[in-house]
C-alpha cells in the first residue's frame, strides 16, 4: 500500500502548529494545555495508524523551478518511531498535566515538547538526508531547552553539555552525509543524490553505492562519521556523558526524550543506514561499540546513587544493546544478519515500553516521596501498590527475565552473538562473553530498582501518597503494553501468534538488504540452546551476586572515580577554560560599545583586507568640483551631524539630527530622486516626533567622557570612516556587469520594462504599467521588498507593544 502524502505531511506539521498555538492557548486554558498537547499527539498517532502497513516514498513539489521537493518515506521502522514519538507523547503530555502542576515556565515547556515531537516525527519520516539532518538538530535544540528548564547552574551545565555533544556529533554526521551525496552523484541508478529512501534513492541501489564507496576509499570514513553522529545522539561510550546530566530535565522529559524517543534517533539512523553500509567494517564498528557501551554503562548504572541516574545509565546500556544488534551481520550467512536486525528492531520497541514506564515511576517516586536517592528509598509497595505492580512488569522486562518483554530481545542478541562467533570463530567469541557479562549487571541494577518497592521502609520516609490518576494512568498503559509483548511469547509457544510479530517483522525488513523478508516470530524457548544457556547464566549469576550488591557497587565506584578513566574528566578539562568565569566576561562584558567596536572594527578590517588581497587601486579623480547647491547641502549635513555629536542636551541633539535628515532629503532632490525625497521628508518628520515623545520620558542624562576615551573613540571612528570612504570611492567608480540572464544591464532592463509597451494596452504581464519607474519596481518587479518592508514596520510595532504594554501589565 502506498502512503498518503497529505496524511504524512499533516503528521509532521501538526505538532509544530500546535507548538505555535501553545503560548496563546495557555492564556485561555492554563494548565489544561497539557491535554491540548496530548490531543495533538493523539491526532498524530491516529493519522499514523491509518498508514499502518504502508510502504513507499511520497514527494511534494516544493520549489518546482529549482527541482526542490519535500520527500518523506514510510516503512516499518519509520512507523515504529512515529508510533513511539506520538504514542508515548500522548502519555507524557497527560502525565505532565499532573507532574508539572506548580512548576514554572509551562508555556515554554509544552511548546518545546510539541516542537520536539514534530522534529522526531520528521526524523522518522524524512526520506532526504538534508531534511533528516535538519530535524535531527532540531531535536538537539529542543533537548537543550528542556534540559535547561529549571535554569539553575547544574541545569545550564547539563544543557550545554548535551548540546555540545549531540550537535557536534550531528556535524560529523553531516560531513558523512555530504560524502554520501558526493559518491551518489556518480552512481547512475541514484536519481536524486540527497534522497536516502524511496525510488531512485541511495537505499534502492545499496549495492552500487557500496561498491562506489569502497572504490573511492570512502566507506570507512563515512561509517565513522555517521557512527559518531549516532553515538553522540544515542549516548554510546565514550559520548554517553551527557545523558546522566540530562536528568536535570523534568522527569516527563527524561522519559520522553532521554529514553523513549530522542536517544532512539541514533539507533534509528544505524538501523536505517544498515542496508546501505553493512559490511565487515560495519560489524566491527557497531557490534563492538554496542557491546562495550552496554557493558560499561550497565556497570555505571550499578554505581548510581540516584534513581534517575540509574535509569539514565541503563538507557545508554540498552541503546548499546540495540546498536550491537544492528551491528551484527555476516557476509557469509544472511541468517546472522537477520538475527542482528531482529535484535535491534525488537529491542527498540521493548526498551521504549519498559524504560518510559520506569522513568514515569521514578517521577512518581520523586514527586510523592520527595527524594530520588536510592539509599533513602525502600518498601514503597505498601503505599503505592499499583505503581509497584507496574514496576514489577517493567523492571523484570529490563532485567531480561522470562517471560517479560526484554527477555526475548536479549535472547535474539545472545543468539546473534553466538552464531557470529560460531561462524567466524577466533576473537569473535568475545562477543557472547561480553554480552553475558554486561547482562549480569543489567540484571543487578534492574532488581535493585525493583527493590525500592520491597524490603524494609526507612523510618524517615513517612507516608507516601498515591499520585493523581493523570500520573498513574500513563505508566500503567505502558506497562500493559510491555506485558502484552511478554505474553505474546507465551501465546506464540502455544501456537497463537499476536499481530505484534507481523509489525516487528516489518521493522526488521527496513534494516535488511532489499528483497530479504523477515518472518519474525518470538516465543519462550522450549529446548536448551546456547542462547537459553546464556540467559540462564545471566539470571543465575545475577541472583547469586545480588546479596553482595553493595560491595560490587563500592568496588565499581572506586574504579569509576579514577580521573583519567572518566570521559567526563576530559570533557570538564577541555571546557573548563570556557566554563569558568574568566574568559567569558572578558569577551561578553555587557557593554554595548565593546560589541559595536568589535563589529565595526572587524567589518572594516575584513573589507580593507579584501581590497588589499584583490590589489585594487583607488581611482584617480581630477578636481574637486561640486555644484553649489550640492556643496551647501553637504556642508550643512556635516555641520548638523557634528552638532548632534556635541549637543548639550537631548532636545538639541534631536533637533540638529533632523537638520541632517532634511539635508539628506534635499540631497535626494538634487540626485534626481523625487520619491526618495518625499519619503525622507515624511519619515524624518515622524522620527522627530517619536524622538521628542520618547525623550520627554527619559532622564536628561548627559554622560561626560574622559579625555582619553574621547581620543580613543575618535581614532576608532576615523578608522571606520576612512574605510567607508575608501569603499565609496572604489564602488562608485565601477559599474555593475551585465547579468548572464539578461542581454543588457539591470538598469536598462527596468527602464525598458517599466512603462506599458505600445503594442499592449495598459495592462500586461511581463512589463509594468506605469511611468514612474521606481514605483513600478516597488509594486511590480520587487513587490516582495515592499511586503518585507511593511512586515518590518509591523514587527517593530508589535515588539514595542510587547516590550512596553506587557511590562505595564506586569507580564514580562
Amino acid at each position, binding site marked *: 500500500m502506498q502512503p498518503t502524502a497529505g496524511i504524512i505531511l499533516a503528521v509532521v506539521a501538526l505538532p509544530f502548529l500546535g507548538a505555535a498555538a501553545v503560548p496563546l492557548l495557555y492564556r485561555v486554558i492554563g494548565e489544561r494545555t497539557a491535554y491540548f498537547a496530548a490531543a495533538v499527539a493523539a491526532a498524530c498517532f491516529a493519522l499514523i495508524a491509518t498508514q499502518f502497513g504502508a510502504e513507499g516514498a511520497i514527494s511534494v513539489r516544493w520549489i518546482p523551478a529549482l527541482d526542490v521537493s519535500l520527500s518523506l518515506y514510510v516503512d516499518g521502522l519509520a512507523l515504529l518511531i512515529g508510533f513511539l514519538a506520538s504514542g508515548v507523547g500522548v502519555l507524557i503530555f497527560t502525565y505532565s498535566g499532573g507532574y508539572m502542576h506548580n512548576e514554572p515556565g509551562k508555556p515554554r515547556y509544552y511548546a518545546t515538547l510539541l516542537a520536539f515531537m514534530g522534529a522526531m516525527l520528521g526524523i522518522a519520516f524524512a526520506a532526504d538526508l538534508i531534511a533528516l539532518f535538519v530535524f535531527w538538530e532540531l531535536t538537539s535544540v529542543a533537548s537543550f531547552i528542556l534540559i535547561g528548564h529549571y535554569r539553575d547552574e547544574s541545569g545550564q551545565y547539563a544543557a550545554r553539555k548535551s548540546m555540545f555533544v549531540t550537535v557536534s556529533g550531528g556535524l560529523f554526521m553531516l560531513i558523512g552525509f555530504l560524502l554520501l551525496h558526493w559518491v551518489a552523484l556518480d552512481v547512475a541508478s541514484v536519481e536524486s543524490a540527497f534522497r536516502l529512501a524511496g525510488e531512485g534513492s541511495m537505499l534502492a541501489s545499496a549495492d552500487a553505492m557500496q561498491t562506489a564507496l569502497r572504490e573511492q576509499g570512502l566507506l570507512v570514513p563515512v561509517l565513522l562519521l555517521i557512527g559518531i553522529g549516532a553515538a553522540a545522539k544515542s549516548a554510546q561510550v565514550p559520548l554517553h556523558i551527557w545523558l546522566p546530566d540530562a536528568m536535570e530535565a523534568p522527569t516527563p522529559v527524561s522519559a520522553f526524550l532521554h529514553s523513549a524517543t530522542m536517544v532512539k534517533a541514533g539507533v534509528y539512523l544505524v538501523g536505517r543506514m544498515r542496508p546501505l553500509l553493512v559490511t565487515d567494517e560495519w560489524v566491527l564498528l557497531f557490534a563492538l561499540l554496542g557491546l562495550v557501551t552496554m557493558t560499561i554503562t550497565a556497570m555505571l548504572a550499578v554505581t548510581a546513587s540516584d534513581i534517575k541516574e540509574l535509569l539514565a545509565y541503563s538507557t545508554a546500556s540498552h541503546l548499546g544493546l540495540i546498536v550491537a544488534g544492528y551491528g551484527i551481520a555476516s557476509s557469509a550467512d544472511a541468517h546472522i544478519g537477520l538475527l542482528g536486525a531482529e535484535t535491534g528492531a525488537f529491542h527498540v520497541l521493548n526498551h521504549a515500553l519498559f524504560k518510559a514506564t520506569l522513568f514515569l515511576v521514578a517521577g512518581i517516586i520523586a514527586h510523592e516521596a520527595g527524594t530520588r536517592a536510592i539509599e533513602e528509598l525502600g518498601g514503597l509497595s505498601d503505599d503505592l501498590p499499583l505503581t509497584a505492580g507496574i514496576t514489577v512488569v517493567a523492571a523484570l522486562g529490563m532485567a531480561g527475565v522470562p517471560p517479560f518483554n526484554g527477555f526475548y530481545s536479549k535472547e535474539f542478541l545472545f543468539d546473534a552473538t553466538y552464531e557470529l562467533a560460531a561462524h567466524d570463530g577466533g576473537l569473535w567469541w568475545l562477543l557472547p562473553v561480553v554480552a553475558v557479562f554486561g547482562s549480569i549487571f543489567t540484571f543487578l541494577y534492574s532488581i535493585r530498582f525493583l527493590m525500592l518497592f520491597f524490603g524494609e521502609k526507612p523510618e524517615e520516609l513517612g507516608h507516601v501518597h498515591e499520585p493523581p490518576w493523570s500520573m498513574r494512568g500513563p505508566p500503567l498503559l505502558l506497562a500493559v503494553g510491555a506485558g502484552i509483548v511478554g505474553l505474546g511469547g507465551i501465546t506464540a509457544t502455544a501456537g497463537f501468534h499476536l499481530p505484534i510479530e507481523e509489525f516487528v517483522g516489518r521493522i526488521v525488513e527496513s534494516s535488511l538488504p532489499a528483497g530479504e523478508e523477515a518472518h519474525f516470530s518470538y516465543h519462550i524457548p522450549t529446548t536448551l540452546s546456547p542462547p537459553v544457556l546464556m540467559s540462564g547464566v545471566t539470571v543465575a549469576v545475577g541472583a547469586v551476586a545480588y546479596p553482595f550488591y553493595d560491595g560490587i557497587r563500592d568496588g565499581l565506584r572506586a574504579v569509576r572515580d579514577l580521573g583519567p578513566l572518566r570521559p567526563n574528566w576530559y570533557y570538564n578539562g577541555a571546557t573548563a577554560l570556557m566554563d569558568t568565569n574568566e574568559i567569558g566576561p572578558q569577551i561578553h562584558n555587557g557593554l554595548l560599545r565593546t560589541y559595536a567596536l568589535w563589529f565595526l572594527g572587524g567589518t572594516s578590517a575584513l573589507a580593507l583586507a579584501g581590497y588589499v588581497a584583490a590589489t585594487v587601486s583607488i581611482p584617480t579623480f581630477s578636481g574637486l568640483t561640486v555644484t553649489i547647491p550640492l556643496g551647501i547641502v553637504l556642508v550643512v549635513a556635516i555641520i548638523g551631524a557634528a552638532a548632534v555629536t556635541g549637543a548639550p542636551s537631548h532636545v538639541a541633539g534631536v533637533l540638529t539630527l533632523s537638520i541632517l535628515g532634511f539635508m539628506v532629503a534635499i540631497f535626494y532632490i538634487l540626485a534626481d530622486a*523625487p520619491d526618495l525625497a518625499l519619503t525622507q521628508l515624511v519619515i524624518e518628520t515622524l522620527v522627530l516626533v517619536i524622538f521628542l515623545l520618547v525623550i520627554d520620558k527619559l532622564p536628561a542624562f548627559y554622560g561626560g567622557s574622559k579625555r582619553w576615551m574621547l581620543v580613543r573613540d575618535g581614532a576608532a571612528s576615523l578608522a571606520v570612516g576612512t574605510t567607508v570612504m575608501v569603499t565609496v570611492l572604489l564602488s562608485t567608480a565601477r559599474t555593475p556587469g551585465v547579468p548572464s540572464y539578461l542581454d543588457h544591464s539591470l538598469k536598462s532592463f527596468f527602464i525598458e520594462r517599466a512603462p506599458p509597451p505600445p503594442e499592449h494596452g495598459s495592462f500586461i504581464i511581463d512589463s509594468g504599467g506605469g511611468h514612474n519607474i521606481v514605483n513600478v519596481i516597488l509594486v511590480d518587479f520587487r513587490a516582495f521588498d515592499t511586503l518585507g518592508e511593511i512586515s518590518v514596520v509591523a514587527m517593530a510595532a508589535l515588539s514595542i507593544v510587547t516590550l512596553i504594554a506587557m511590562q505595564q501589565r506586569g507580564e514580562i
Partner: protein
Amino acid sequence: MTQFVLAVVLGLLFALGTFLVLRKDLVRVVWGLTIMSQTANVYLVTMGGLTGGVPIISGHGGQGTEVTDPLVQALVLTAIVIGFGTTAFALGLSYRVYQTNETIDLTEVRG
C-alpha cells in the same frame, strides 16, 4: 569630481555615527544608528551614478532622455522605511531599558 567629495562626506558622517554609537548615553547610541543608516542610504544613491534625469518616463516604451538608475532608488526607498522601523524600535527599547533599570547609562545596565 562629485564622487570624491561625496566619499569624503560619507566617511565623515559614518565616523560621526560611529563615535555616537560608542557613547554611554543610550539616546546618543540611537542617534548614531540613525546617522549610520542615513549615510548608507546616501551611499546607495551615490552608487547609482548621479547622472541622468528623474526616472519618470512619459509616453510608451523606453525612449526619451537618459534617466538615472531607478533600481538603487527603489532599494533606498525600502531602506528608509526599514530604518524608520528600527529607529522606532530602538527608541521603544530605550524607554524599556529606562523603566527596568532607571538609568540610560550603558555602563550601568550591563547584562
